[in-house]
């Protein structure tokens, strides 16, 4: 029996994309317990809702996180629309979902690249990010931004996508399909990747349910839950939607689920692009949320379910804006997954929850 010792891991660590601190209690290179600690990048963005009006706050909301920027602006706008009883034009709903799914494609490809970097496959990382650039170019052409888009507004969207641009969307997405399949093959079939991920960081199905895990992290433990199933907005018009599940419950399963969600998102974009109705892209929104009015909303971000709550006070400034982000739900699961793993696997497990600490701390 070795001696117990505590290894501080993070917040500054080469493998971590964002700052999180872990106290790893180890014995003979085996992690006995992991205590996560956050609080390094709290910016007080929720408090800003009292000094920025509900139209201005949309630009703050999308700056909560650089990768789920579109999702946050969309989730916030939908919450305010519910709060004020605004009905958004159908075309705007479709455009929002198309952009949101495109941001899921870029987020998952980014994550796959980071995962490749974590297990030391530099070439794979480069190829992933090269493909992601093409998705970012699509964003740049349609929204004018690469990371922060500022294209959603309360009552609709600010820019339209015409037919020729929609067909370019599909053309570009078809173009990356072949290369993406090769990349997936490298991730899922390569023995060196399998050795690093297979059977590592297992969270059984029952435990995933009891820890209220969300997103691809939970779906990799066969938790059949995806907010898109609820059919909010344009998701309701999809002919068929089934969450992608895996019952391996390990790091490999998480990679498998994310890898399969990219083609699924491309299919959603394809279907919505063929069904998109003509019409207005926004309705004018006047007035302020009523005193004491409350609204909540859920949205499937690339990392999982994100919950929004807003409370009005009769002025154009909100009384309260609360977001519960997927990473805050998944941190408990991560601590469980780390128990019993090797120290060398810690970085892989931390990465497979796709931690977004900026979202979590806001």
């Amino acid at each position, binding site marked *: 029996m070795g001696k117990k010792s505590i290894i501080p891991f993070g917040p500054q660590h080469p493998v971590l994309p964002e700052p999180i601190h872990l106290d790893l209690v180890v014995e003979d290179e085996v992690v006995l317990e992991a205590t996560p600690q956050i609080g390094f990048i709290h910016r007080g963005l929720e408090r800003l809702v009292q000094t920025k009006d509900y139209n201005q706050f949309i630009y703050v909301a999308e700056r909560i996180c650089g990768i789920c920027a579109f999702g946050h602006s969309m989730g916030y706008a939908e919450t305010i629309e519910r709060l004020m009883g605004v009905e958004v034009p159908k075309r705007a709903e479709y455009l929002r979902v198309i952009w949101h799914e495109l941001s899921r494609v870029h987020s998952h490809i980014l994550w796959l690249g980071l995962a490749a970097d974590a297990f030391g496959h530099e070439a794979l990382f480069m*190829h992933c990010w090269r493909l992601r650039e093409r998705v970012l170019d699509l964003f740049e052409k349609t929204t*004018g931004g690469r990371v922060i888009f500022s294209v959603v507004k309360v009552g609709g969207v600010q820019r339209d996508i015409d037919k020729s641009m929609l067909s370019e969307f599909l053309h570009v997405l078809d173009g990356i399909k072949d290369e993406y399949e*090769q990349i997936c093959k490298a991730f899922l079939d390569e023995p060196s990747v399998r050795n690093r991920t297979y059977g590592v960081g297992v969270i059984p199905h029952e435990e995933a349910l009891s820890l209220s895990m969300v997103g691809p992290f939970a779906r990799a433990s066969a938790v059949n839950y995806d907010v898109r199933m609820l059919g909010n907005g344009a998701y309701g018009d999809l002919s068929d939607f089934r969450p992608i599940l895996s019952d391996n419950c390990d790091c490999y399963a998480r990679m498998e689920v994310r890898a399969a969600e990219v083609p699924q998102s491309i299919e959603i974009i394809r279907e919505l692009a063929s069904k998109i109705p003509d019409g207005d892209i926004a309705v004018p929104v006047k007035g302020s949320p009523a005193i004491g009015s409350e609204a909540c909303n859920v949205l499937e971000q690339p990392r999982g379910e994100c919950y929004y709550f807003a409370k009005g006070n009769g002025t154009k400034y909100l009384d309260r804006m609360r977001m519960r982000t997927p990473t805050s739900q998944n941190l408990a699961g991560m601590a469980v997954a780390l128990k019993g793993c090797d120290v060398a696997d810690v970085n892989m497990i931390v990465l497979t929850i796709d931690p977004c600490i900026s979202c979590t701390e806001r």
Partner: protein
Amino acid sequence: MGVFKLGKMTFGSLFKKPETVLYPVQTKEQPAGLKGHIELDAKACILCGMCDRSCATGCITVDKQARTWSIDRFQCVQCGYCITVCPKKCLSMDPNYAPASTVHASDVVEVPEQDKPVKAEKVQATEKPAEKPKAAEREPEPAKAAETAVEKTRDDVLEAKIALLDEEKAAKVRAALAAR
């Protein structure tokens, strides 16, 4: 064998043109709708201050007294909200990024007098000679008095316009006027 899983793609990359460009010698073509920087059409601006009040970062300042519209490019996040609230639609998004700067200073745009008020002054100036017959009853030399009044208002307008110019330009204009 891991190498061969990516072999096709890696080998193909050898014969493709590079994904990146040699910046700054080469630059990528910017799409038309890119959020580069905010531009003001000063002729159409009425200095209402809606952009100033609505800006989430507070980077725009409208000074009605000095007739200036200024923007701090370092603070601007190119959200475009000012463009949507502008009643005269005189703000627009230029697809080119604002050039880098080593000095933290605001870009100041001088907003010229609107056409409407200037026209009103001209009308006022032309109306005065029309009052000649009435004034003629009271004053012995009405034409001269009217002429001096018109000249006085013109001088005032000129002086106000010269005051908006920078010192060097203003000195040149004054010298040209004196020579005339």
